[in-house]
């Protein structure tokens, strides 16, 4: 019979306010096998843990139940504490009487009653806990970074500097990501390419980094420490070793119709192209959908002009399979589609553009070679209106419920740059609240207002009506003046909401990383573990985890790198001991369980078994505990209950059910 100690935490007042902890202790002592029960204001504190240690020694406890906060918070803490005092860590169970009880019930009597029941369930379970031992599994000393934007590049550089090999997989023909499309960056207004390109070159030349551009992750299997990843390198139709990047093929290519994605579709590009001048690798790709040679077999001009003989129309996709110890998701973001926002006439008038399109227009390498002009008639705009929160902070199904965080800063940047370069252009910004909370951020915004005379108006815009004379009539409102505003504008820039890259859901499913309804990857803990996914071995870097600007992205990229280095530094990883195990006397060998195992951890062998005196060769299921992750699918498929899950065994769960329904 187990000697169990029950420790009830007040959690300051979080629990004690609505749960009578003394009553829980009193009821605990009535439970079978409970030889010690006490309460303490902060059980997870040093002092609290010393109480547990003392009780273990004094009362020779071999089972601990801590009634406290969620096991996702402090189960590890209490298990370490038990282990330090000579008790197997898997003989500790947590009853969640805070998040699942005290915080959500107001009536003291009701909450206490429930806390007692949850305590009983935990005691009933601990009675049947087995002293498990964590296994070990090897760690492949190599990391994979999905996404080659600033987040991916920074993470890869930091990991590579620590001496581990990193592969970057980038969907586009070149790394650089969203940042390579920006003109200037806030708050220092230095040119985006100037601070990004050196990092790209450093990543390209780093001996520990391999870059796979024009490639996508196709399949991921395995788990932390040994992921097996299939990477599809799409056919470039250009031999990367021979190509010198001279660019003649792009000039001579007759097919100029495809829209240039890099310039947000504002101008066109040739079928064979590199997205931008400083592309890394500086090797073009052929867009199979637009290339006349690949479609009809005629043409082949680029092959003729290429002195290096690098063009190879016969190239096909290639699948590379690689082992990794850790995977970092750095898939970045894109602006949302504005087709549901008819009131801003984004689709109707060419002069209503998004901020990202404005970045390209103001960029010297952009479609207008850096001249600020209207896309409809090419004239310089005299009246520009910026509209904030387009699609952000919308709880209807058209937009996103969250604030995209970076728009107030980049709109202030745009306004300042325009007023500086074209002093006679008036800039008006319609805002709900200006949110510039970073270091030197508010000062930056105030400079736009005070030094550059940008006209900020508090009030959303109701409608943008394109007029017959080509101008745009903006129906706004000035809530502070309580006046409606009808402003004639030459150009309207929408600060569009951002959302994670469209492929992130596919990647999340492959990595079994949890993802929320806005397609942001869920972090293990919003405050305490922001760069790790709950799925061990998967780390988050950049906007895939939530809206953030470049300084935060680089900071998070570094943090993710440190977590990866921490993981790769270990030779052996502790594996979860709560794995499945087959009882050889009950197993029918019917291989139903292998049919449902997602990790292929179950194999079968015929061996001799002594079933109460009957010696027989039987076909027995064997679980490879290194591969098994403990999901339990096999335990329910097994009709005879032969397959059981250690740590969550059939009898333990039945015991919990009985304790709850008593």
């Amino acid at each position: 019979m187990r000697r169990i100690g029950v420790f009830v935490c007040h959690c300051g007042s979080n629990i004690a306010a609505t749960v009578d902890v003394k009553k829980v202790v009193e009821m605990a002592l009535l439970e079978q096998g409970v030889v010690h029960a006490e309460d303490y204001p902060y059980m997870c504190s040093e002092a609290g843990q010393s109480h547990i240690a003392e009780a273990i020694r004094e009362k020779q406890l071999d089972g601990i139940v801590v009634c406290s906060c969620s096991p996702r918070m402090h189960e590890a803490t209490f298990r370490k504490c038990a282990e330090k005092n000579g008790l197997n860590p898997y003989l500790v169970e947590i009853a969640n009487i805070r998040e699942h009880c005290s915080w959500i019930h107001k009536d003291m009597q009701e909450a206490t009653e429930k806390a007692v029941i949850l305590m009983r369930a935990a005691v009933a379970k601990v009675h049947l806990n087995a002293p498990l031992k964590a296994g070990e599994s090897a760690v492949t000393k190599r990391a994979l970074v999905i996404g080659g934007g600033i987040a991916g590049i920074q993470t890869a550089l930091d990991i590579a500097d620590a001496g581990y090999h990193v592969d970057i997989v980038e969907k586009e023909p070149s790394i650089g990501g969203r940042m390579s499309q920006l003109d200037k960056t806030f708050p220092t207004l230095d040119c985006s390419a100037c601070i990004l390109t050196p990092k790209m070159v450093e990543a390209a030349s780093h001996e520990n980094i391999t870059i796979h551009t024009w490639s996508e992750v196709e399949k991921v299997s395995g788990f932390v420490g040994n992921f097996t990843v299939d990477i599809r390198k799409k056919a470039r139709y250009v031999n990367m070793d021979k190509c010198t990047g001279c660019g003649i093929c792009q000039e001579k290519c007759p097919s100029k119709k495809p829209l240039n994605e890099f310039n947000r579709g504002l101008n066109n590009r040739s079928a064979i192209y590199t997205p931008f001048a400083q592309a890394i690798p500086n090797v073009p790709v052929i867009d199979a959908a637009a290339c006349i040679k690949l479609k009809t077999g005629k043409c082949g001009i680029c092959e003729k002009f290429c002195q290096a003989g690098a063009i190879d129309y016969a190239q096909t996709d290639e699948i590379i399979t690689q082992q990794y110890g850790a995977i970092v998701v750095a898939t970045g973001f894109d602006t949302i589609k504005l087709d549901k926002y008819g009131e801003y006439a984004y689709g109707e008038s060419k002069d209503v553009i998004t901020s990202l399109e404005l970045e390209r227009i103001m960029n010297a390498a952009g479609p207008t070679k850096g001249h600020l002009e209207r896309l409809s008639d090419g004239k310089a705009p005299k009246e520009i209106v910026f509209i904030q929160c387009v699609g952000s902070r919308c709880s209807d199904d058209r937009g996103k419920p969250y604030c995209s965080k970076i728009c107030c800063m980049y709109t202030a940047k745009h306004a300042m740059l325009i007023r500086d370069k074209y002093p006679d252009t008036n800039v008006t910004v319609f805002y709900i609240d200006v949110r510039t909370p970073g270091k030197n951020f508010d000062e930056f915004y105030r400079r736009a207002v005070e030094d550059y005379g940008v006209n900020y108006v508090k009030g959303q815009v109701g409608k943008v009506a394109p007029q017959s004379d080509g101008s745009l009539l903006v129906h706004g409102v000035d809530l502070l003046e309580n006046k409606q505003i009808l402003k004639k504008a030459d150009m309207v820039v929408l600060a569009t909401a951002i959302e994670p890259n469209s492929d992130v859901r596919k990647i999340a499913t492959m990595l079994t990383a949890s993802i929320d309804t806005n397609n942001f990857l869920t972090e293990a803990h919003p405050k305490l573990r922001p760069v790790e996914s709950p799925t061990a071995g998967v780390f988050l870097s950049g906007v895939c985890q939530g809206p953030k600007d470049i300084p935060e992205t680089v900071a998070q990229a570094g943090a993710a790198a440190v977590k990866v280095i921490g993981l790769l530094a270990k030779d052996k990883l502790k594996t979860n001991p709560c794995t499945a195990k087959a009882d050889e006397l009950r197993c029918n060998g019917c291989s139903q369980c292998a049919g449902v195992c997602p990790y292929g951890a179950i194999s079968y062998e015929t061996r001799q078994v002594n079933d109460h005196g009957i010696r027989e060769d039987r076909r027995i299921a064997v679980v490879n505990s290194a591969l098994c992750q403990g999901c339990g699918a096999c335990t329910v498929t097994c009709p005879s209950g032969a397959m059981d899950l250690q740590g969550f065994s059939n009898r333990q769960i039945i015991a919990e059910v009985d304790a709850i329904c008593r």
Partner: protein
Amino acid sequence: MPVTENWKPTIVAFCCNWCSYAGADLAGSSRLAYPADVKIIKVPCSCRVNPMFILRAFEKGADGVILCGCHPGDCHYSTGNYYARRRMTLLFSMLDYLGVEDGRTRVEWVSAAEGVKFSETMNSFVEKVRGLGPNVRLGDLRCRN
């Protein structure tokens, strides 16, 4: 059998450790109340819940059993909830076939970020079970005190 006013239903909720248990924690930290009759049992994945557990809960006096798991596609073990979905569909269909009130059992997919959904699910489920009164059809039909 008249439903006595102070009758409180017993609800067992099996929550998967990675999504719905975290969703329950979020409901807790956001102080989104739901009736105290709901007691949560943590399981590694929704595919760990055996029909024996559900029937055992009813046998021992539960009035409603709800199974919460990750949204299909988000399962931490990639395919766990797909199997749970098939098993529970067949089990619930059999319980309806036996004439058990369909409000007593339910499956709900709740992600770790959906604290509100978790609380709303529990409130609506308890409401439905309270409407059905104590569990008779899946309990012991012999004389009750």
